[in-house]
């Protein structure tokens, strides 16, 4: 049975738990933890259900649909006005699953947080509710509502629980990074805000319902003018070059689970927004602007990879590699052909789990060693074999090793790009090659080779804790699942991708 209440629950449960947590005394550190992990598990279960109960070939574009009247027939709002309209298509389904996985893994990884952990989890669940909300909303008002909700808690999450970075020549305080991330993302949403206003005025249907707005024919020039608002507005959250610099700074400063969620899931909101508000709403505008997006996406891939290669800090490396990998998503979308867009969505999922795993592993190391300088480590494999194995899987997935998720996704993107823009295909592959260089070099230096004396005796590094183990294992399970058995994903995505106007 498909019921919209499943999707509603993904939003309502975290919000409800956030309220419950308000009432828990802040001294009950353990109670907060158990409650949070239980919630994470429940969300994981809900999202698994939503993903696997989604029926391919059902003929319905949106499944698990539900629509609650919220406000109608007031002022400029017409018959449908603003409704809580939920539903997922074949793109939303894997995104919901991704959110469930990463949110659950994040609660496990956050187990060791002690400082004001109640406040932490309240904000964490607000963030999770916002993310789920964006992926399941089919109403423009609520889409934006949840989009902003997903940005709102970031400032405090980074500012209070984050970590500052110091480098020989400069420093990045957590306050700076938190402010930068928040202001850049909210600044970008100004464009979306304006876009929503003009679309509502132009459509003149008195409703914010996306399905209704999709069926309106917009003037071609209008589409060309408004599409960039959504493209850039959402693109910034997807790490679009040259607006990407908030991402490495923000992700590095954030506490581990928040980095996982933000790089793993929130950046996907941006790409998802380009599909939902950009390509689906304004197809002719999309067609017009896609050559620009492919150019920027290619720069993302290559520039991000080169920047990642130059990093000496684990987390900055992962941060820039996210920029690079999100470039594949943007390139895939820009191809506007079925294979490429398919690959883009696959990459959204693949990068989500893989980067979450990487950030989780960096967190394991940093929490013990209190440094993320790659040069400070060596031969970690002797003391932390499981850690190295987990990190290596994430790394190999990221450089596109067959059998892991990254290969399936990137291969599709490459195919798509070669189909439409053969010249840029080469650059995309180059990006993957550079990725291989920095990942393998990092592994060779830090994980293998000479053991660094600094981490022996009293400072001996321990392998992962139980919670980190479980959290990582779940992520790995999906990396491998998608690598060897991609069809549940591909079936859902490819069916929906063909329904996007302009994609052939």
């Amino acid at each position, binding site marked *: 049975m498909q019921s919209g209440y499943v999707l509603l629950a993904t939003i309502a449960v975290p919000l409800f738990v956030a309220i419950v947590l308000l009432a828990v005394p*802040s001294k009950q550190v353990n109670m907060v933890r158990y409650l949070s992990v239980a919630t994470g598990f429940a969300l994981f279960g809900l999202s698994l259900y939503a993903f696997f109960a989604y029926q391919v070939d059902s003929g319905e574009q949106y499944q698990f649909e539900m629509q609650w009247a*919220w*406000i109608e027939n*007031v*002022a*400029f709002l017409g018959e449908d006005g603003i409704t809580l309209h939920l539903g997922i298509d074949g793109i939303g389904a894997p995104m919901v699953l991704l959110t469930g996985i990463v949110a659950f893994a994040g609660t496990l990884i956050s187990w060791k947080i002690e400082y004001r952990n109640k*406040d932490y989890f309240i904000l964490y669940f*607000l963030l999770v509710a*916002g993310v789920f909300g964006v992926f399941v909303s089919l109403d423009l*008002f609520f889409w*934006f*509502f*949840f989009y*902003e*909700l997903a940005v*709102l808690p970031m*400032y*405090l999450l980074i*500012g*209070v629980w984050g970590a500052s970075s110091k480098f020989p020549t400069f420093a990045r305080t957590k*306050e700076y990074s*938190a*402010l930068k991330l*928040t*202001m850049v993302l*909210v*600044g970008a*949403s*100004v464009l979306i*805000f*304006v876009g*929503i*206003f*003009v679309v*509502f*005025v132009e459509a003149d249907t008195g409703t914010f319902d996306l399905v209704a707005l999709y069926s309106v024919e917009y003037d071609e020039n209008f589409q060309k003018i408004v599409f960039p608002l959504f493209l850039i507005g959402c693109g910034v959250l997807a790490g679009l070059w040259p607006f990407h610099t908030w991402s490495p700074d923000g992700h590095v400063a954030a506490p581990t689970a928040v980095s996982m969620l933000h790089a793993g899931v929130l950046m996907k909101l941006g790409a998802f927004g380009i599909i939902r508000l950009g390509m689906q709403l304004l197809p002719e505008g999309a067609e017009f602007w896609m050559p620009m997006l492919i150019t920027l996406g290619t720069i993302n891939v290559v520039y991000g990879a080169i920047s990642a290669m130059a990093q000496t800090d684990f987390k900055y490396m992962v941060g820039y590699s996210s920029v690079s990998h999100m470039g594949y998503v943007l390139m895939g979308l820009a191809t506007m052909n079925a294979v490429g867009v398919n690959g883009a969505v696959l990459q959204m999922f693949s990068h989500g789990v893989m980067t979450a795993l990487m950030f989780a592993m960096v967190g394991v190391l940093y929490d013990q060693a209190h440094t993320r300088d790659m040069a400070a480590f060596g031969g970690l494999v002797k003391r932390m074999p499981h850690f190295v194995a987990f990190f290596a899987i994430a790394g190999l997935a990221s450089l596109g090793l067959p059998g892991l998720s990254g290969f399936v996704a990137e291969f599709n993107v490459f195919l798509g790009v070669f189909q439409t823009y053969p010249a840029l295909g080469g650059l995309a592959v180059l990006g993957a090659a550079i990725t291989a260089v920095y990942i393998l070099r990092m592994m060779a230096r830090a994980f293998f080779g000479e053991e660094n004396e600094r981490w022996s005796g009293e400072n001996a590094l321990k392998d992962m804790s139980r919670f980190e183990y479980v959290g990582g294992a779940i992520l790995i399970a999906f990396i491998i699942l998608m690598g060897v058995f991609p069809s549940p994903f591909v079936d859902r995505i490819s069916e929906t991708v063909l329904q996007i106007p302009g994609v052939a």
Partner: protein
Amino acid sequence: MPSELNLDYSLLTPEFCLAGLAAIILGLDLFAPQVRKEWLPYITALGLVGVLGVSLGWLDVESDFAGIIYVDDYTTFFRVFFTATAAVVALMSAQFVRDRLKNNGEYYALLVLSVIGAVYMAASRELLTAYISLELLSFSLYVLVSFARMDPKSNEGGMKYMLLGAFASALLLYGLSLIYGSAGTTYYSDIATAYSGSTESFDLGLLMGMVLLLAGLGFKVAAVPFHMWTPDAYEGAPLPITAYLSATSKIAGFALLLRLFTGAFMPVLDDWQWMVAALAALTMVLGNLVALQQTNVKRLLAYSSIGQVGYMLMAIAALSAATASALLLHMAGYVVTNLAAFTCIIAWYNLTGKDDIADMRGMAERAPVLAAVLTGALFSLSGMPLFAGFFTKFILFQAVASEGFIWLTVIAVVMSFVSLYYYLMVIKELYISQPDEEGRLQVPAMASGLAVALMVGVFYVGIYPRPLFEIAEEATNILFV
């Protein structure tokens, strides 16, 4: 002017009650000094809530007193609005006024009297009555702002406010006289009739009148460039009065503007629309940009409220039934949010005696409830979801955009983004900076209870705004018949 005067005094019952309440408060202060300090705020609040109940008796009534005071849903909306606001302000004044001010009786009596002025600003449909009501509100406020007699800042603020206010009143009166000269009447409906027939393209008297009128009213609502008094008055006034200034004084100005412009000046829309649009744009930009520089939380909120006035002026510029209801909705959300913020600031000031932003560092450790509510209120003011601000701004901006003022909306959205920066700077002190002193502060249950109650209101408007929005629409319908 209506042909037959309807002198039904019962229509004015709520205001008679208010005047009576003020008299009772003064009497209590005079004859029962032992109760005055402890109980006055609660008596005031209770009395105001009683008047609120009384004014609900005129729900869905449409009547007028001698053609100058109209009692309809619009008036009822503002009767409820202003009495409720004053009641909350009385409650949040309790500790502050008892500990720091003398002559408590006069304080509460003036507060109650100012409500009468505010209500009639919303209710009158005649220029002079509107003007007198405005003066009644202003005079109460002049005194209240300078109520901390021993504090030079309060004196300075009060003095500035009064001198500039008198000047603005003169401008306003001159403007009104020019309009009278041009239209030949002071009744809103007759002014509208006078202009709707005329095909004359240019009427200098009217134009000059409009300019002066906007300058005078612009002063009262603190629109740029007539805002200069605001930061000083806000900073100098006793804190609860700062809250009251940011709430009732502004909202009453808008209630008057809305009634006046819909009632009298719709036929000459083209003559004033651009002026209000320009004022709105200036006000939004300047208010929000200057707020970035502030280090004192009262001044910060003063400039932020100027920014908010800019958003509200947009609704007057793009005047239509939709923007009017959106304006009422936004004002309600704004006032609840602002009162929540001020409740926290007052409680913090009572405990620490400090009101600089930097002195609020570590509030999350020392007074977590206040910090949480204040943070929520600031997020709401910046327009973040779950809180009232997101929805009311969304609706207001969309309404303005729907009337074709996309450029204004764009400025508003950008400025709303700018505002997030200075709100975040406060939130940073609350949560990220470490406190100067250790230890929890004992926040009185009254203060935290009031703060939480107001916050619940903020969430209510943010999550389930339908009832309020529908009430706002019903209240404004009468303006557009």
